[in-house]
């Protein structure tokens, strides 16, 4: 009989996990707390309860403009990254192309290389080629950052797919495009969908590329928050931040339903 884990260890482990979770979640809880404060000043614990900062951001041109930019950007990035990522993941899974390992490295490299290095390179190249940065530059930049996530989730799903289905379809006389559309793509769907939500989240929350490529007219929500934090933070920043946390929670739930969060983490 294996000796049980001593109860002191159990209690220590329990306390440790609780403390760690408090540490990890504290900033988010604090932000949400500040957002419902009645006070003019950022204070935690909040004094009183009021939704005035939420109504403040809903009437603020700066926040609404940034939210619109972020939303438009995230949707366009999601569409592009998902379509491009689907093709990339399918070819990486099939391993028919010569230099497949190099290709895999290419598609996943934005995940490994620090974003700041890519962001500054993009700013310099864009300015040298096209002049001032634009929405398109930001769109391209975010698509590059989001692409590896789509590729990874789709590859994870394809790894568990049945390799003989496509062969069976070929034997039955299905043409190449028919096999792709009716056999391979449907198998990718859960991974693609999860990847799409990841791409949306990445683009919506991304701050490094957006900070380098910002102009007075090109400000995303995280950058608007960053600007406020640098100069004049008030509880309205907390209200916007809380809404962004809400969006993140929603996306995690959706991704978990589609793919299982556990599977994505490789655990």
């Amino acid at each position, binding site marked *: 009989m294996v000796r049980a884990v001593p109860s002191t260890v159990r209690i220590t482990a329990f306390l440790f996990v609780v403390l760690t979770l408090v540490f990890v979640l504290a900033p988010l809880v604090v932000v949400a707390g500040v957002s419902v404060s009645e006070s003019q000043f950022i204070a935690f614990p909040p004094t009183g309860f009021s939704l005035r900062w939420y109504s403040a951001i809903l009437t603020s041109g700066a926040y609404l403009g940034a939210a619109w930019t972020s939303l438009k950007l995230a949707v366009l990035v999601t569409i592009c990254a998902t379509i491009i990522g689907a093709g990339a993941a399918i070819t990486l899974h*099939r391993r028919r*192309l010569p230099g497949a390992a190099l290709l895999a490295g290419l598609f996943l490299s934005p995940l490994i290389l*620090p974003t700041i290095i890519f962001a500054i390179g993009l700013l310099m*190249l864009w300015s040298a080629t096209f002049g001032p940065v634009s929405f398109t530059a930001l769109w391209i930049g975010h698509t590059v950052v989001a692409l590896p996530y789509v590729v990874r989730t789709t590859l994870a799903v394809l790894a568990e797919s049945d390799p003989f289905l496509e062969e069976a379809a070929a034997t039955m006389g299905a043409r190449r495009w028919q096999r792709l559309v009716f056999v391979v793509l449907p198998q990718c769907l859960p991974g693609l969908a999860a990847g799409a939500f990841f791409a949306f989240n990445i683009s919506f929350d991304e701050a490094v590329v957006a900070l380098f490529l910002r102009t007075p007219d090109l400000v995303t929500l995280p950058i608007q928050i960053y600007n406020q934090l640098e100069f004049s933070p008030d509880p309205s920043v907390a209200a916007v931040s809380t809404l962004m946390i809400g969006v993140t929670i929603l996306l995690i739930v959706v991704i978990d339903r589609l793919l299982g969060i556990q599977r994505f983490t490789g*655990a």
Partner: protein
Amino acid sequence: MSSSTDNGVVGTPTLPPQGVSTRVLGGIAEDATLSAPGVFLIVLAFILPIGQMLLLSIENAGGGLTSEHFTRFLGDSYYLGIVWRTLRLSLLITVIAAAIGFPLAYVMAHVGPRLRLWLIVLVILPLMTSVVVRTFGWMVLLGRGGLVPFTLWKLGFVNRNFTLMQTESAIVIGMVQVLLPFMTLSVLGVVMKIDRRLEEAARTMGASFLATLRTVVLPLAMPGIVAGSLLVFTLSVSSFITPSLLGGVRLPVVAGSIYEAATKTLEWNFAAAQSVILLIGVFLVLLPYLKLTGRRHG
């Protein structure tokens, strides 16, 4: 003679040799088409910008080649101080993240699947929240009158109400929270695969719980800890949003200095040279990481 008989067989499943090779070529052509948009995007919008940056780092005002930007950075004690601070803090952040991340991942691997799912969601939630939002939370917690300094004051550890903002401690606290999920998930992936019977065997043979943890689990979890540490270290060395908001202008880090040069003083060549130095540093650290993960997947 015999060939004509073969051709006469109805429904022969074998394809002629040329058919096979065109089929292979057709498959390659299809895959090339499918991956072309991705290759275009990465080459034009990722590789090329980095190439442009490399070029700018060795270009002087007249367009000729120079190493002046590198010598300016590496010959100035101010910038070397920034490098030293970045390395020192990143190392500290990595060690703390590993010290918290390993036991956390171990517990996560040993609880039931339902609880594990909840723990994973709670670890991933901050990971997927914008870094700006999380840093804002720390600004509230660490600032004057914030919960952390206030509690320390009331508990008697310090003799006055103070602020932790604009200190290296603030940077370390904020960065550990931002990067801990990467460490936890890296270690969890490896710990989940450790054969539970090895631990049981050690316990049956009389090893205490902690001895088992130290002599059986820790060595087997090492690849995950190393991979997580390299990830946390490189992310930490190259981040600037959290350090600049929590540490302020008096405590610049390398990435923050790059940002200043690129967007405030507009010295692009100098910013590019600093980026190249950061890139080389990250590569030196990442090479063993890529080897590690490559072996695990390949």
